């Protein structure tokens, strides 16, 4: 729901970094978004397109989003297990409910490319 605001933040960060690195044209921005994050990739993409048309720096830029599956680690038997569609935070190996979410909550700006 707040993807536009998040994307504005992302583009501000890239803009500052581009200025510091004398980059005048960004060709790619890459984000990593965990599936348990509340940011929806489609909405992020839409927000990116809306903002990038107004900014010379981003005019020919594409947004690439890597989605991360939700991976849990069992505190009891250390087994790693992946979660899809329905989230069940119970170890599929030993049935323990003491599990840590070790992947799937990411929300970061990985890198950008430009010249």
């Amino acid at each position, binding site marked *: *729901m707040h993807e536009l*605001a998040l994307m504005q933040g992302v583009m501000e960060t890239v803009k500052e970094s581009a200025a510091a690195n004398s980059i005048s044209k960004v060709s790619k921005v890459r984000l990593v978004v965990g599936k348990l994050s509340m940011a929806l990739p489609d909405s992020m993409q839409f927000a990116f397109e809306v903002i990038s048309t107004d900014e010379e720096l981003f005019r020919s830029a594409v947004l690439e989003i890597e989605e991360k599956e939700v991976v849990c680690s069992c505190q009891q038997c250390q087994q790693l297990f992946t979660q899809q569609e329905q989230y069940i935070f119970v170890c599929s190996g030993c049935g323990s409910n003491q599990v840590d979410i070790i992947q799937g909550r990411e929300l970061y700006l990985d890198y950008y490319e*430009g010249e």
Partner: protein
Amino acid sequence: MVKVRLEHNILGANELLARKNRNIFSTQDLLVINLMSSPGSGKTTILEKTIDSLNGKLKLGVIEGDLYTDQDAQRIEKKGVRVVQINTEGACHLDAGMVDKAFQELPGDNLDLLFIENVGNLVCPAEFDLGEDLKAVVISTTEGNDKVTKYPLIFREAGVIVLNKIDLLPYTDFSLERFREDLAQINPLAPVFLVSGRTGEGISEWNEWLLREVSAKRA
């Protein structure tokens, strides 16, 4: 072509401010609860009943978050509790910066317990750390059983879960058994309180738990 690797946490600015809030709350031995739910689950009514039932046993403060209006803050103020209203004017969640500012405006000090009533929304508030000790998620029997599995992050993040409108249970298809089964798979550790904001049922158990948590924070 240059590749600039940033590995920049998009929520990093919020997390920095949340840490700052957490430090301030800790130095004051103040227990802070971030109260979250869908719109209309009864967060404000539960707060009203909690204030009545605690009957001055704790020094309370409330930060009210809403898109618009100060109706909730007025309801809390009538109970004689210090309250600050945040209007997000369209934003779907509170963030740590808003809470920082509101807390500075909250009159007086030496509070025991601060409730931050978030914007009614089960999606976005889950992701924004405000610096609280605990996230309390309220769900009501009239919302249906599917909410726990449809919004796993907020229920996973919850330190405590309150099922409201328990007085309406006989008139809904809400299954307590299924509710407990779903929670066992998503968040087996959070205590669950069954309450009615309308009749006051279950509020005293919830308050006893709050008193214990406040003592634990001070210890």
